[in-house]
């Protein structure tokens, strides 16, 4: 059954912005799918609102639409493009939901497009709990006792019938939003209320709780001829009860005998056949720990986070194969690209262990509830490969970049035994480390297993690490036994930890290893456990005897990737790394990439000439460099992760390509940078470093309040803050910053003005500035959390000229070769002040590249390799302005993180971004906001409660909203201010003023929009926090910046004029008029 000839043009739906529960894996899947379809000679159309993705590159599809992923806009594209087929199963839950909505709205029929991959009926069967249960019962597969409810009363009675604890799962949400385990009636009411709100069909499943059972997943593929295979299975370290996205996962399963393995495999095949999935499918099981009993927990009839992981863990490209199946190919007709010899119809055999470790944002959100349950909280993940479980686990831990390089968590050492026991009993991000601490204290494996329900197999492995560490502990001896060292390396302990335990220096450990020939070898991931010769250059390190990766030949350069997706370092840097690899290959240089994020395109085995799936920490990176001896290392595209490696890499004797380590340091070191800008005569906000509270106060007095305070040592997650007066400063210093001679605090004058951001490419002499971006939110809101607009809409030519001049001079002075990013604030008298210079790729690069059409990374890579910008046909200075306006809008995942304040400030909180683009600014803004998930209530009630300093400015905005038909409700002070300007306002009680207060109104559903700005203090007990959280949890839009509100008002007005907003593909941005 070769591919269908009736298909000429296929449209792929992407997954939109990165949010918790939906990360880079869908860029990987979508990119693979687009390439796979083009490979088959099809015309490919793509829609995705996320500009930071590889899949939205102009060369990925014939037409790339960066448009909102709403039924309305997808329909517009469908009508314009008239594709033969629509492939929604590679765009995550967003893709599936859109397919359902388009079908329900009759659009699929209207445009006569065929849904490819998995039939709609299947999606419904897997997604609708009732249909799903019925289907499973029909084929005799066990499901936990459960029922669907759509109101609270039914939830209560059903739970009584099933018996507590019960799991609450809302239907049709991402990453289990709004779900949870309810242990009693009170918890049930809370979780069900939230769940109903988040379910797009207002349904919630109440389910028998199988917490404590083993959780096992299977990745299954099926083609149109009913051939089925399982790509791999995975076992969760954490027992049932923790969202699989938040679990440490190992592949393949470790504690299942062949009987159990096959029992669940057989069930998986039965299920995928009954569903009729054509493509990939993920099936989750709960398996009893003391019998063959099991339950089917969940089925995702699409590629998923797990399938991306399974692809990287096995080398089997699930998305690529799924796309080919969708257009009619059979598994035995698709080549296994890894071996080049065998076919996609087989089951990979692993001869290594894979560990996935979630990356949680708790470093940014210190006040967030860290308990793990059915609601996913991690933003990303790392994967590690080893020949021992311990090695894979320890590699994963150090890949996380959370300051840990072994299983020792310093805080755990301070816990009382009772606290340890308590922490073992509950699931949270640090349980692994607490278990290690317990073992160190002599708790038995059995006791820990009893408390945590973690399988003793995993605990024994942790014990093996703890024991190996004990074997190294020889205080003061400064010596180390060879056997102990060998064992330590085999189980994956880094030199740093070994040195610490043995009382030696890291250098001595390295020397000892070199003397005894103890360096890692590299093994290949080949899908077949070496049974067949493979062609893919996909490697991991192991302390074994045979090395399979002969040094790459010819000119070669190592590109350092960006590690796990986290707040502040997202998919943009993977985009940059991948483009750098491609540009190097174009230059005839072999590109070798090192990265550890399984979700990404950069870790696809055919992106670079060679892929090392390894931690991005000095030891592991330098080991590879020693082996490969590249002509240089590129660090400027992998975010802070790669930049942080520049110094150690250089110290190890390797060349950093592009901007030098010393110049990077000039940009990052406060004092060196200050003297540089002074020399250049470029203004920056006055300020200085303070080494004590008194000094900080002195700096503040000198520059004048308000000041922006940035401690280098952070307590309780409150890093940067804008402080308005002396009292607040002292309070802040007391509670949030630890200041000492080692940990200075930076105090800068806070300039209240428009923030502007620039990305430039420099070849050392010429500096090309593709565009100037203007932020909607004024300085003080982190640039990553601001709405950015290109080209700037309000800057006059003189300011732009000055910015171009400053940028060019800074780039030259810093001897930048490659990219740099500069943030400016426009102060009084239209004077730009430089806030920050980052001599590396920034998160706006993909967005700016797409909207301007300038291949920024390619040019930067060429500059790094010594080529001039002019050689590529670009002239220095500001690039011509485009007729298309691109608005980048941040996307937050607040609904998933309880106890996190949603207010915007100097600390970044967004997880992803979208772009709206149009020839008209308001339309671009509208598209951007729509893509970001903003809802625009058409009238209703607006709640206003703003801080004193914002009251004056709020008046005009509220007046406009009142003009749009909003009824205004405000707290006493705000109401008074508004009334004095003649606005009709109803006053409402604050929380402490009794009932009915703001929160009561929100709960009652009588507020449609909230405008709230921050008053001092961010502690959860404060009113503002509770108002904002309540709004977010109930899904009421809550705006915390007056600038954002103004932008939204503009959008509301544009929308109300009923404008017909056109869509256009990226390919048309830079050529003539878009066809209507």
């Amino acid at each position, binding site marked *: 059954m070769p591919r269908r000839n009736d298909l000429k043009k296929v449209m792929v739906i992407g997954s939109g912005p990165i949010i918790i529960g939906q990360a880079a894996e869908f860029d990987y899947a979508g990119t693979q799918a687009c390439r796979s379809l083009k490979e088959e000679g099809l015309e490919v159309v793509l829609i995705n609102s996320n500009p930071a993705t590889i899949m939205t590159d102009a060369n990925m599809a014939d037409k790339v639409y960066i448009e909102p992923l709403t039924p309305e806009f997808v329909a517009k594209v469908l009508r314009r493009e008239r594709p033969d087929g629509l492939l929604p199963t590679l765009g995550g839950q967003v893709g599936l939901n859109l397919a359902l909505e388009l079908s329900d709205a009759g659009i699929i029929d209207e445009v006569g497009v065929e849904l490819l991959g998995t039939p709609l009926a299947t999606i419904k069967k897997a997604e609708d709990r009732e249909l799903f249960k019925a289907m499973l019962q029909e084929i005799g597969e066990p499901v936990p006792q459960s029922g669907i409810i759509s109101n609270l009363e039914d939830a209560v009675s059903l739970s009584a019938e099933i018996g507590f604890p019960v799991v609450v799962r809302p239907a049709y949400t991402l990453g289990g939003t709004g779900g949870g385990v309810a242990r009693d009636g009170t918890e049930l009411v809370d979780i069900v209320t939230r769940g109903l709100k988040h379910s797009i069909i207002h349904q919630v499943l109440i389910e028998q709780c199988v917490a404590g059972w083993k959780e096992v997943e299977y990745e299954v593929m099926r083609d149109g*001829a*009913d*051939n089925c*295979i*399982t790509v791999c299975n995975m076992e969760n370290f954490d027992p049932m009860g923790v969202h699989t996205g938040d679990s440490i996962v190992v592949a*393949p*399963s*470790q*504690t*299942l*005998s*062949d*009987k*159990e*393995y*096959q029992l669940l*495999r*057989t069930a998986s*095949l039965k299920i995928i056949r009954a569903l009729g999935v054509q493509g990939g499918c993920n099936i989750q099981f709960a398996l009893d*720990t*003391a*019998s063959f009993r099991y339950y089917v927990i969940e089925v995702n009839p699409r590629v998923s986070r797990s399938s991306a992981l399974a692809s990287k863990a096995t080398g089997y490209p699930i998305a690529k194969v799924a796309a080919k199946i969708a257009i009619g190919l059979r*598994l*035995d007709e698709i080549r296994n690209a890894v071996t080049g*010899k*065998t*076919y996609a*119809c*087989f*089951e*990979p*055999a*692993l*001869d*290594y*262990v894979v560990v996935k470790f979630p990356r949680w944002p708790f470093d940014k959100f210190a006040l967030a509830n860290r308990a793990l349950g059915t609601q996913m909280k991690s933003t990303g993940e790392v994967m590690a490969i080893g*020949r*021992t*479980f311990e090695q894979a686990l320890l590699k994963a831990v150090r890949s996380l970049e959370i300051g840990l390089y072994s299983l020792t968590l310093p805080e755990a050492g301070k816990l009382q035994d009772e606290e340890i026991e308590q922490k073992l009993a509950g699931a949270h991000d640090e349980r692994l480390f607490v278990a290690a601490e317990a073992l160190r204290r002599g708790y038995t*494996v059995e006791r820990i297993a009893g408390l945590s329900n973690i*399988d*003793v*197999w995993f605990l*024994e492995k942790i014990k093996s690490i703890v024991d190996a560490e004990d074997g190294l502990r020889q205080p003061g001896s400064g010596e180390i036994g060879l056997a102990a060292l060998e064992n330590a390396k085999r189980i994956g302990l880094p030199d740093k930890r070994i040195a610490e335990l043995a009382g030696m220096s890291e250098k001595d450990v390295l020397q000892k290893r070199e003397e005894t020939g103890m360096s890692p070898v590299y*093994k290949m991931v080949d899908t*077949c*456990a*070496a*049974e*067949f*010769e493979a062609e893919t250059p996909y490697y991991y390190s192991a302390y*074994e*005897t*045979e090395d*399979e990766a002969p040094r790459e030949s010819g000119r070669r350069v190592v590109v350092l990737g960006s590690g796990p997706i986290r707040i502040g370092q997202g998919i943009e840097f993977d985009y940059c790394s991948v483009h750098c690899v491609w540009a190097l290959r174009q230059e005839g240089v072999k590109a070798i990439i090192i990265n550890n994020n399984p979700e990404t395109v950069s870790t696809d085995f055919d992106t670079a000439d060679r892929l090392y799936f390894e931690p991005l920490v000095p030891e592991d990176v330098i080991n590879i460099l020693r082996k490969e001896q590249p002509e240089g290392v590129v660090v400027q595209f992998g975010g802070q992760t790669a930049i942080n490696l520049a110094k150690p890499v250089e110290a190890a004797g390797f060349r950093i390509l592009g901007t030098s380590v010393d110049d990077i340091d000039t940009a990052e070191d406060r004092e060196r940078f200050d003297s540089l800008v002074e020399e250049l005569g470029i203004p920056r906000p006055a300020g200085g470093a303070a080494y004590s509270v008194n000094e900080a106060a002195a700096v503040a007095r000198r520059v004048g309040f308000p000041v922006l305070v940035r401690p280098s040592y952070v307590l309780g997650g409150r890093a940067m803050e804008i402080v308005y007066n002396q009292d607040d400063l002292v309070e802040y210093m007391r509670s949030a910053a630890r200041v000492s001679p080692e940990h200075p605090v930076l105090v800068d004058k806070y300039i209240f003005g428009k923030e502007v951001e620039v990305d430039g490419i420099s070849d050392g002499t010429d500096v090309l500035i593709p565009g100037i971006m203007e932020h909607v939110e004024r300085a003080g809101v982190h640039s990553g959390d601001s709405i950015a607009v290109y080209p700037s809409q309000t800057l006059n030519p003189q300011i732009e000229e000055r910015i171009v001049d400053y940028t060019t001079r800074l780039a030259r002075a810093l001897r930048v070769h490659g990219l740099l990013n500069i943030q400016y604030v426009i102060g009084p008298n239209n004077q730009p002040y430089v806030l920050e210079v980052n001599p590396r790729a920034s998160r706006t690069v993909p967005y700016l590249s797409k909207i301007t059409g300038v291949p920024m990374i390619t040019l930067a890579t060429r500059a790094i390799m010594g080529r001039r910008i002019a050689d590529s046909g670009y002239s220095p200075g500001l690039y011509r302005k485009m007729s298309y306006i691109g608005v980048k809008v941040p996307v937050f995942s607040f609904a998933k993180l309880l106890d996190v304040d949603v207010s915007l400030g100097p600390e970044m909180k967004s997880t992803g971004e979208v772009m709206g683009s149009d020839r008209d600014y308001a339309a671009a803004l509208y598209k951007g906001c729509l893509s970001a998930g903003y809802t625009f209530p058409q009238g209703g009630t607006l709640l206003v409660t703003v801080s004193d300093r914002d009251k004056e400015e709020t008046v005009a905005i509220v007046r406009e909203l009142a003009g749009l038909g909003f009824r205004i409700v405000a707290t006493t002070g705000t109401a008074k201010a508004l009334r004095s300007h003649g606005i009709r306002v109803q006053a409402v009680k604050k929380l402490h003023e009794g009932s009915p207060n703001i929160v009561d109104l929100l709960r009652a559903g009588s507020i449609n929009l909230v405008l709230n700005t921050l008053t001092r203090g961010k502690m959860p007990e404060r009113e503002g926090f509770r108002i904002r959280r309540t709004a977010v949890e109930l899904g009421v839009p809550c705006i915390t910046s007056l600038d954002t509100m103004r932008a939204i008002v503009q959008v509301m007005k544009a929308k109300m004029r009923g404008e017909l907003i056109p869509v256009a593909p990226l390919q048309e941005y830079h050529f003539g008029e878009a066809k209507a």
Partner: protein
Amino acid sequence: MKGALALEDGTVYEGLAFGAGGENWGEVVFNTGMTGYQEVLTDPSYCGQIVTMTYPLIGNYGVNDEDFESLRSFVRGFIVREACGTPSNWRSRFSIDAYLAQQGVIGLAGIDTRSLTRRLRHYGTMRGVLSTTDLSPESLVEKARNSPVLTGQALVPEVSTQQPFVVPGGNRYRVALFDFGAKRNIIRCLNNRGCDVVVVPPHATAAEVLSYDPDGVMLSNGPGDPTDVIYAADSVRELFGRLPVFGICLGHQILGLAFGGRTYKLKFGHRGVNHPVKDLVNGRVYITSHNHGFSVDADSLPPEVFVSHININDGTVEGLRHRHLPVFSVQYHPEAAPGTNDAEYLFDEFIEVMGREGR
């Protein structure tokens, strides 16, 4: 305790011994299954072989009382990267170390098994010696070179029954099973389908088989080179046209010989649970369990026999079928254990054939 493996090509791997001590020789092969080591250890087809597992962590779920494929382990040695000393599974009764010690099997851990596998893949299966008593590389290599090759060893008699016996499973059909080293699960699969199984020795004649008045004949799996069991091919040939015949693995090769075909040795064989086999009759592909070092030469078969299944990876013969007679066989293991049950439908077909041909 130290242990070492020496190959006939002169390679020596030193590691840590587990299980029993001593010295043994055999053909060194690798198995790519990530689970199922208990079944592998007790599969009589591995008689004469030193088995290395490519998955590095072996013994994780221990050894239980149920998943044995025969009464004891017939492997000549067992090589792993890491043998788990602290297994975890509700059915686990012994650690792999304890089980091998009890069975007198030498285990070797702590070697780069991937390196060994790549060597075997590249140069083909080799003779080897596993020892905990002689750790001299020269001496061990010499022993490996002087050890007998697989072909010519009387392995089948070592692992099969000498006396016929009956395993009742219901009286739907009676199946005579030639035991060349049958895995228990073949009997279980027949029993589960309501068949009484009469297990007969490999030397049983056609007349002896017919004396049990069976509805069908099964030819089991077993160790070694099929040409060493040529006597069975003669008995089987006499049964053609009289009874339905279904062969598995060695049974399939014997059937190939009975048809007048030839068998040949594969470079490194198929051992694992992930092999894609295409059923050329229905066009479907199944993921199947394999353990064989020999194969039937398709070109050697008479016209009345056709190749019904092929391996997608290397195109080798995986199934045979007689065009007119109810005689068929597969090279792989529909009884699984270890491995998938994708091919279990073949037992149903056999039952169907017996029903059709039967009384």
